[in-house]
């Protein structure tokens, strides 16, 4: 369980998340991609804290902040999905053509 192995795992999670966030049409599936990206980021932060940072408490604090970011992203994302559905009755990203030329 070296730092490189942990970071490669985090990179794989971030890569899968980027694929999901770019490719999924449904808003909720798109947000799952964002969640996976944040999952990889948290793993990388904890890995650096444990194996490279010598266990300084700020490393854990960074992970807490990322967790708060994840909660904000989930809550506001779902609220926007609901608002968009109320306004336009759509739930896929391709239907939002307001800025399309």
């Amino acid at each position, binding site marked *: *369980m070296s730092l490189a192995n942990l970071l490669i795992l985090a990179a794989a999670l971030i890569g899968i998340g980027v694929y999901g966030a*770019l490719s999924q049409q449904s808003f909720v599936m798109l947000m799952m991609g964002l969640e996976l990206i944040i999952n990889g980021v948290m793993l990388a932060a904890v890995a650096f804290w444990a194996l490279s940072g010598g266990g300084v408490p700020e490393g854990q604090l960074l992970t807490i902040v990322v967790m708060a970011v994840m909660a904000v992203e989930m809550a506001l994302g779902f609220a926007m999905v609901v608002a968009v559905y109320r306004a336009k009755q759509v739930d896929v990203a391709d239907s939002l053509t*307001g800025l399309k030329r």
Partner: protein
Amino acid sequence: MTVADAVFYILAVIAIVSGWRVFRTDSMVRASFLLLLSFIAVGAIMLLLGAEYLGIALFFMMAVEMMVMALFMVMFMMNPAGLNPMNMVHQPRVAIGAGVAVFLVLAAVALFAQFPRNSAPSALDPVRSLGRELLGDSMLIFESAGVALLATMIGVVVLSGAGGRFGASDVGSRPPGLTPDAAPAGPPEQEEAASGGGHHGH
């Protein structure tokens, strides 16, 4: 290879495979539970690394979050129970290319960068040190996160509420016409009955 290494590799495979299957399963509810599995594997790896509080907090947080997620999945699911094959993707090649590129760049950083090797001391009590940091030197950051979450709650209520104090929440959100006094730009309005209320049941 120690036991911890073996457990780590098993958990890593679980995290990656379940994360991948999230976008390959036919049922959105199953997708949310697969994402939960991926998060639990990552939380267990955090426990292996000695981050006890963060790992357990991730378990609890993701369990609740994925329940909410599953509820939303049912609300927005176009394919109940995963009975039909579902492949709702756009620009798949660009997305796969971007994902692979991100992975390769980050993996190259992981392999070739020279990070300091400075493991946490075995005598470290991670929960105690985190608590002292949260309510000590970094209290301002911790409290700012709390205020940000409060602002999020207010914003969520404002965004998702059906009717505001001054009428329906989407009034005024229609784009202006392309010429004066023209109909709003964008797609034509749906039927008026859908936004006219009367189906709220309160």
